């Protein structure tokens, strides 16, 4: 399993000279399997460049897994090249709603005044799926989804092959559900999908000083992310969803703080950077 980070910024795209090292595109991660199959996690602005590369590579079929439909996880979809190619099929997965289909919720961003074209005009073959309650197969991978603490309906994902496991919780505030201290794994938000993952990609939008001002906004402090990774027994932690106000230097400091907090053997926590490639295992 190979992962590439196409966008790791939270909330809002943040281009500029102060964010060139970590990048300014919002959430998008590509997962490529040994058989060449491609799975895309979230459709933030990072998905635009990924789309161009997928078309160049001749990828004609792929799965897109959306954690939720906040704009920073969806705004790149309209500019995702494969959607505008009638030879491409895309299966789009996302959390269910009690009242509106996934297609209808996504189509809101493909309509005036937000966008000149309607979702019906997209030439690619699109199939929409509510995420199932039980694990399901996508090619050589088993995928699991679970609702996690974040405003609105939001899921985290676990992607597992016979060789490696990867948990993706880019927007997550476990502290709002009482945190992890003293909790058994079954009482921890997302615990079942993150348990023992070879790699856990987790929200770490805020510093410890900042977090108290943003309780309930759906994101974690770097300390909460480190504590969460320890509680679920993740082997490696990749910190994600960087706060737009954080420039490269402040993100360097957050990474140093995360390593100080983790204080454990093996790979210390790392901040995700645009363009970063990870091979699992």
């Amino acid at each position: 399993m190979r992962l590439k980070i196409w966008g790791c910024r939270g909330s809002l795209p943040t281009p500029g000279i102060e964010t060139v090292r970590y990048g300014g595109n919002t959430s998008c991660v590509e997962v490529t399997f040994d058989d060449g199959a491609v799975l895309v996690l979230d459709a933030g602005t990072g998905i635009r460049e990924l789309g161009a590369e997928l078309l160049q590579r001749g990828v004609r079929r792929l799965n897109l897994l959306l954690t939720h439909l906040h704009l920073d996880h969806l705004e790149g979809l309209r500019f995702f090249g494969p959607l505008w190619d009638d030879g491409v099929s895309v299966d789009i997965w996302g959390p269910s709603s009690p009242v509106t289909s996934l297609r209808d919720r996504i189509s809101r961003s493909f309509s005036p005044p937000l966008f000149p074209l309607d979702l019906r005009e997209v030439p690619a073959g699109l199939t929409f799926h509510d995420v199932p309650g039980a694990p399901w197969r996508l090619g050589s991978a088993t995928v699991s989804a679970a609702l996690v603490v974040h405003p609105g309906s939001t899921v985290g994902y676990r992607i597992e092959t016979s060789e490696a496991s990867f948990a993706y919780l880019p927007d997550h505030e476990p502290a709002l559900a009482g945190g992890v201290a003293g909790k058994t794994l079954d009482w921890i938000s997302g615990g079942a999908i993150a348990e023992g993952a070879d790699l856990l990609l987790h929200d770490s939008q805020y510093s410890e000083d900042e977090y108290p001002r943003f309780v309930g906004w759906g994101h974690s402090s770097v300390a909460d992310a480190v504590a969460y990774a320890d509680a679920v027994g993740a082997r490696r932690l990749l910190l994600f969803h960087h706060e737009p106000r954080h420039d490269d230097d402040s993100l360097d400091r957050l990474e140093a703080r995360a390593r100080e907090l983790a204080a454990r053997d093996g790979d210390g926590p790392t901040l995700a950077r645009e363009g970063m490639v990870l091979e699992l295992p």
Partner: protein
Amino acid sequence: MAAVRPKHLVLILAREFAENLATPTLITDERGVLVFYNEAADAIFGRSFAEAGETPLDDWAAQYSPRSLEDDQALPLERRPTGIALHERKPAHERFRITGIDGVVREVEVTAFPLFTHQDELVGTVTIFWRV
């Protein structure tokens, strides 16, 4: 050893809600297993949840001999609010009598309601004990 079932997010949030309430509150999962009650409920039941642990609701409730106020006869689960919330999937309210682990007979007034997720799936119940 059987694997521990992960709790649905709705139950996790319900527990956090209950932990911060001064009103005695009890939570079951969708099978009717008591998965949590808060500190305020300790006084009614005579012991803490840490001592009680996760237990099928009927086994647990039997220790408290729930009885009708009218005739002091045993009140079966299907006539108690939590049983109605679980099996009929609707809210219910009732007054009845229990005997705590401490031997004290108490009259309780109880409201229970089912918890549904986005897919209309029952994931558990919340039961609130009002002071009488």
